[in-house]
Structures are given as structure tokens and as C-alpha cells.
């Protein structure tokens, strides 16, 4: 009943080529966290509701708990680590900090990846649009107001001309 087969996958994570031997049932989230060692991608529900596991696959936000690792074979994946550098916070991150858009920080990687994907495509997203897109990510601590403000405030860094 339990035939476990593994498969070798090769894909790009944060601009670097990586490979892993994974079982067909391994989620992308688990692969990133435990095979690749990038634990910034968080797992809050494993059933596609909380958004903590959001990563960017080929430019689009995706829930890595609902995607199998084998589906990432040959694709380009960006995680919160890929949207960070050691020298300074990015404008999006700095905006989160300034607006106190995080408390426990557990939802934060998913918020950052979701917001980054949104603003990359829609730097002029208005408040309603931001709220709408973020409504797929649960945060139990902040009540969201500060997160929405942080994302709106970060739009300039993505080339928003202002409304």
C-alpha cells in the first residue's frame, strides 16, 4: 500500500539552480523548507487558506502547500529570502516595519511575497484592490490595517506614479 518513490527535480530558487530528491507527495512548501533549507516560507494550515506559505512561481503568487514539489520542476520560484538582502530592508520590508505591519511575524513572509507579486504587476493598486488581494492571507495579530497601509505606502518603490 505504501510504495514510496522519489523523483529528482531541478528548479530555480531565488535565482539559484537547485535540485532535490522528493517523493511525489511532497509539497513545494516542505521541499523548500526541509530539502532546500529555506524556512522563511511558513506553513500555517496546509490546506490553502492561510496564505503563510505563499511563494512566487514564474512571477505569480502561489500557495506552496497546495503545489507539489514535482510541479516546480523546471520552474522559477522566489521565496521571502529571495526578496531580502542582508545589507538593508527592501522598501517593502521597511514599509512593513515603519507601519508595524507585523507582530508575531508568522504570516509576514506570505504577506511580503503576496504584496510583492501584486505591486510588481499592479504598482498602482488602490486600497480596495490591496485589501482584496491580501484577504487571501490570514493574520491573527495585526487586524490588517497596518499591513494594508504598509503595502499602499510601498507602491512608489514599484514605480507607482500615485493616483
Amino acid at each position, binding site marked *: 500500500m505504501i510504495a514510496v518513490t522519489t523523483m529528482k527535480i531541478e528548479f530555480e530558487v531565488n535565482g539559484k539552480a537547485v535540485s532535490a530528491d522528493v517523493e511525489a507527495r511532497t509539497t513545494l512548501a516542505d521541499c523548500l*523548507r526541509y530539502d532546500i533549507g529555506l524556512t522563511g516560507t511558513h506553513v500555517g*494550515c496546509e490546506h490553502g487558506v*492561510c496564505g503563510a506559505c505563499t511563494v512566487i512561481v514564474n512571477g505569480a503568487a502561489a500557495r506552496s502547500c497546495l503545489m507539489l514539489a514535482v510541479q516546480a520542476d523546471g520552474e522559477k520560484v522566489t521565496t*521571502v529570502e529571495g526578496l531580502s538582502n542582508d545589507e538593508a*530592508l527592501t522598501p517593502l520590508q521597511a514599509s512593513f516595519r515603519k507601519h508595524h505591519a507585523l*507582530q508575531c*511575524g508568522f504570516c509576514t513572509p506570505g504577506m511580503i511575497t503576496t504584496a510583492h507579486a501584486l505591486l510588481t504587476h499592479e504598482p498602482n493598486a488602490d486600497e480596495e484592490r490591496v485589501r482584496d488581494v491580501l484577504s487571501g492571507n490570514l*493574520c491573527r495579530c495585526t487586524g490588517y*490595517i497596518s499591513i494594508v497601509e504598509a503595502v499602499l505606502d510601498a507602491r512608489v518603490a514599484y514605480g507607482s506614479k500615485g493616483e
Partner: protein
Amino acid sequence: MNTRPGNSLIGSPVERVEDLRFLRGKGTYVSDFSLPNQLHAVILRSPEAHGVIRRIDTSRARALPGVHAVITAADFGARPPHIPLRLQPLPELAPFHQPVLAFEKVRYVGEPLAVVLADTASIAEDALELIDVEIAALPAVTDRASAERGDSILFEPHGSNRALVWTATRGDAEAAFVKADVVLKERFHIQRHAAMFMEPRGFVADWNAETQRLKVWGAAKVAWTNRRILATAMGLEETAIDMVELDVGGGFGSRGEFYPEDFLIPAAARIAGRPVKWSEDRREHLMCANHARDIEINVEMALAKDGRILGLRGMCYSDNGAYLRTNGSVGPRNVAQFMSGPYKIENIHLQTTMLTTNKTPSGTYRGPGRFETDFARERLIDLAAKKLGMDRAEIRRKNLVADADMPYPLATIQPFESVTELDSGDYHAVFDRCLKEFGWDEKSALQGKLIDGRYHGIAVGSFIEGGAAGPKEDARLALETDGSLTVHLGSSAVGQGLETIMAQIAADSMEMSFDRIRVLHGSTTHVTEGYGSYHSRSTVMGGSAILLAAEKLKDKIRECAAARLGCSKDDVTIDAETVRFKTTSLTFAGLGAEPIEVEATFYNKKYTYAYGTQAAHVSVDVGTGHVRVHDYLSVEDVGRMINPLTLHGQAIGSIVQGLGGTFLEHLVYDANGQILTGSLADYLMPTASDFPNIRSITLELKPSPNNPLGAKGAGEGGIIPVGGIIANAVANALSHLGVEPMELPLSPPRVWALIDAARRAKR
């Protein structure tokens, strides 16, 4: 003592140090932590709500390649360890303690039956399906009616499903009801819901057979207490165990209490002789972490014609679930003791009966008992105003405790007596400030108005928030040889920004720059004893301990400097991380060959009471029952703010949690005791698009006289009156129909049913 030395960082909106790692995905939450050679634990949980365990056969599971062990109750001798109560540890509650693995009977869906240890979590999960369990089902007790009928009893030797009755008394309630001009009698119900923090629970445990020492990663909230419980259960000395706190993804009262897994994972590590890691999944969390609230409140309020509240009496029934957990009495007890809230009510006789049922055991969730009791009280006050034909603000003004009445005693609760008093506050000033900021007079015109298919309503109410539970907290300060300061603290972080707040206090009190301070907290290795984060206590208790330690440290620094500079210690001045005597000076960095260390303890017997007033403006769509929140304002006096940025964040977050409990969140069971809300798609929580219009104003009107910071425990507060205020606003909007909500949540179907029933009654 100078209460605000330095006076520059305390009170400033300092950006958090924690953010730098969290924003980069560099936090270390427990599931991010691993040890070489670790095994993975997965727990088999009861599929039945109530039944006698006939057989657990693990042989097929153990035969699965990759499985190392399957642990059952039989591995722990004749009787597995039971988890004692942390708060209100009454001997009469001992029969209801939860065993670490179901023992003889199962009493709720999700109760642990066995632990599988395997090379990977997926193999362990595969093995679960190979464990053969036979349970002879018994009828499930799932509500007050079936609990009281007693044809099915959870703890047979006890003879009933009634665990204990709490009684809160003050004055002479019977006499007050005889004197009353008006008496209201109502039944309220607050639904079962839960803290639902975003990071699931987990542990990594490592047993060293050689040194006979245990190390546990994943501690939270009350590491020292849990170490004591664990040491007893495992037959170890407390000092043989180190509990390590990693980053913690939210607590809200629920995380960090001692659950079965707090024992099972360390015990499994000892049995296996290898490190063991366990991470809960969300379904387990919904079935296993503490539930909360679930209470029926039957209460009468006695009033004089002029609107003065003369007395309260009644009986509440709390559905505590299958066992009494570590803090399971707090909510039910608080409902009785704190129903009077910020109002002057001299005559009280309120009881809460704790019932055992075949549901997940309950514990505290932010504002335990207070959210519930405020719902009943604020509803009653609005109903009283209606009956007396009084203005709703006026009746509250008439009853709010006055500054001159402070300290003001509350009802005393029995058994496990607790006597407490409101410490200080200008309740009237905050009430008026809230009305003004809210625009109460202007918005009054909206009451009951139909605009674009929605009826509008407003409401206002006041609350108190208890904080700063004793008995004490320790802080150890070390001036390192490089001149930096390390703060070791017994307080624990659960996502509230503790590192930043404590560094602010330490920097000010040592007159050092913020970035020279490092805060280590929550782990048992840092101080001899710590009491942790609950009851809004960490800022007040930990912060006060730092202030005391800083005084001691400065003294010791002067002493060291005096020896070096050849003067008396009283001649040494400390300024900007430098010690001086006349024209000679030494920097902190050059002071000693060894770190200079001190430890201090802050003791506190008295609680602080932050307080506030909130107001809401809602509209109701009578076609769908949907309620929209147009404006929600909270004004709270916390005595002294350490960091306005984080405090504001907690206030908003707390209110939104309250709105979740008011409108959305509900843990639903069927008559067989099966939980129907097993995912976050069924258990609804607020999202970014639900409540955009929340405002919070924090004031520093009346510092607490009970601690050197003057701070009052805050952060839970916002949630407390939300249910009552929203329900009052809905009633106000629908006053033309006479709709009076008595139960939560105010989901669209419930509100619509109320509207429908009211319309039928009118016909």
C-alpha cells in the same frame, strides 16, 4: 525612585528589532528548528467523542519500515501522568485532570491515543492508519441539556457532569432585588471559539542519556511552570531540564499552556534515545488546542428608577469540554467576578457552573471571561435604558465608578478566593473622550435610519482589563566586557514585541543607547525562575524587574569604577555609557575583565486595571442579515505607554479578534460530538477586507500606583467589550423591529433569522 530615568525611549514609537529577522524570513519558529538524527512524531487521535477503549493494537504500524516506535498509555505504567492545573489548582478539580494519553476512556474527538515515531513525518502518518483501535462508543454529552440530564457521564466516579460552581459575591443581592424599581432577566450565550494563532504548536526534544538531561525547544508563555510539571511527570529534577523559547507565532492565552504533547514529545525522546520533532497540523490544532468562551449566562439586573444599577444575580453554565485544563477555570470564574466591569454595582451574587462535555477542553483566550461577561452586561444596560426610557450614554455615566471611589473593590470569588480592586482611573473622562472622538452627537441622528437598503445603528460601552498578575518576575542584567548590556528575563515573547519593549526600558534606565542592548528571554537558562506572559503581565512585571535591576547594576558599576579610579563609589557619576570621577573617565567597555552582573526581582500582589470605552457604528442589510462596521473606536487608558507603535498595533489586532468572535468564529459540534469545523475554510476568521474601519486612541491619564513604571497591563483590552457593543449597535439599527440579539456570533443567517422572527411577530 526615579520612575522614568533617561526619559527618552520609554513612550517613543521605536521600530521593532524583531522585525529585522521576521521580514527576511529569518525568524526561527519551532518547526524551523531541527536536530541531526531526529525522529518525527505523529499522534493518533480519538475519532470518537466518548467511549471505552477496548484495544489498541500497534503491531502492524510497528512493522512498517521507517517506524521506530509506537507509544501508548501502557508505556507509562499503570496510570499515565495527568496534567495538573496551573491556575486555581483546587483539589476538587483533580478528578478532571487530563491524562497525557487517553486512559481507559476517550472523552473528545482528537484526544491523543498513541504516538508514532518514524524517520519522516509522512511515514509516521502512514503508520497511523495501521494502528487498530477499538472503542466502545458511549452517548456523547454535547450541550448543557445533555450534561445536566446525566444519562451519560464523563467521569462516572464523580457522579455528574457538573465539575464545580464558582460564586462571586458582594453586598446583599437579595435585598437589592427587593428594593429594585425595575428588574431585567435575560439569557445570553457566547459561542465556542478559540485563539487560533497562526503558527501551529510544535516541539523538538532531546534526551541525553549520558548526562540524564533533557532539552526542549518550543517553550512559550510559562516555561518555568511547564518545566516543573514536566519534571514531575518524567521523574526528573527541574534543573535537569532546559526549556528553550524560539520565535513564537502568536499565543493569545492558548499557546504555551501544558498540553499532552508537552509531555509526550520529551517522553518519546527519552524512550527512543533520539531527538524527536513534532509539528501540529491545523486540523489537530482545531481539535486539540484550548477552545474558549462557550458559556450560557442567565442573569438578572436590578435598577432604581433613576437608572442606578443596584444589583446583579444569576447562574452561568460554562461548557468546559472534556477535561479541566491548566487554566480552564479562569474564563468561567471571570464571568462571575467581573460582570460589574467598570460600573459601580454594590450587590452581586453570580455563579458559574463548570460542566464537562465531550468536546475539546477549554482554556483562556484573550480577555478570558471578560469578552463573555461584557456581552451580557452591556446588552443588559442597553435593555435597561430602553425600559427606563433613558439615554444610553446617560445611564452609563450614572453608573461608572468615579475617580473618587478608587480603589474600588470588586466582587469576591469563591472557592480559591480572590479579592481584587480597581486600582485607579478616570472612567468618566475616558467615556466622554470616546463619545467626542466618535462623534456620538452627530452620529445619533443615524439611529434606526434606512440608507441605501441598510439600517444604521450606534452603541457605546466601557470595560476594564486586568493585568500584571503576580507573584514576581526576575531580571538579570549583565554589563558585558565590550560595554554592551545583556538583559536576561523571565518574561516570554508571544509575538508582542517584547525584545523591543524591554530594550527600551533597559536603555532608558541604564542611560545607554538602544542598539547596545540585547534581550534574552523566556528560556529557563536565563534566570532562576520566571513566570511568563499571561494576564497582560509581561511589560509591567518584566519591565519593573529591569528597573530594579538597573539601579543595582549602576551601583555595582560605580563600585567597580571606584576601585579602578581610586575614589569612593559615591563620587562616581555615570553618564552616556561612561563613568567619571573628576576629570578621569572610563567607558563601560573598559570597565572590567569580567561581565558585571546583577539580578533583581519585582514582586507584585496587586493587579492593575487598564480601562476604556468603545463605540461602534454599524449598518444592517435586512435582506441578508449582513452587518457592516462603519466605524469602531476604542479609547483606553493604560497608565504608561512604553511603545505607542506596538500598543496601538495590539489594540487594533485585539479589536479585530473581537469582531471575529462577534461575527464569524464558531467551533461547531454535532450531536455525536464530532467537530464540524475542522479547517480554516470552515472556521472563519477576519480577513483584510472585513473590517477596514477601526480606530484606537491610547491615553496615559492615570499611572498605576502599583508598580514603578506606572504601566497597566494592556494589549488584551480591545477585544473585551466588542461583542456587547456590536450587538447593541445592531439592536439600535433594528429598533423598529424590536430585534434584540442575545447570542453570538452575529452571522448573517442568525441576524436574518432574528429579523424574520421579529417581522412574523409583528404581523
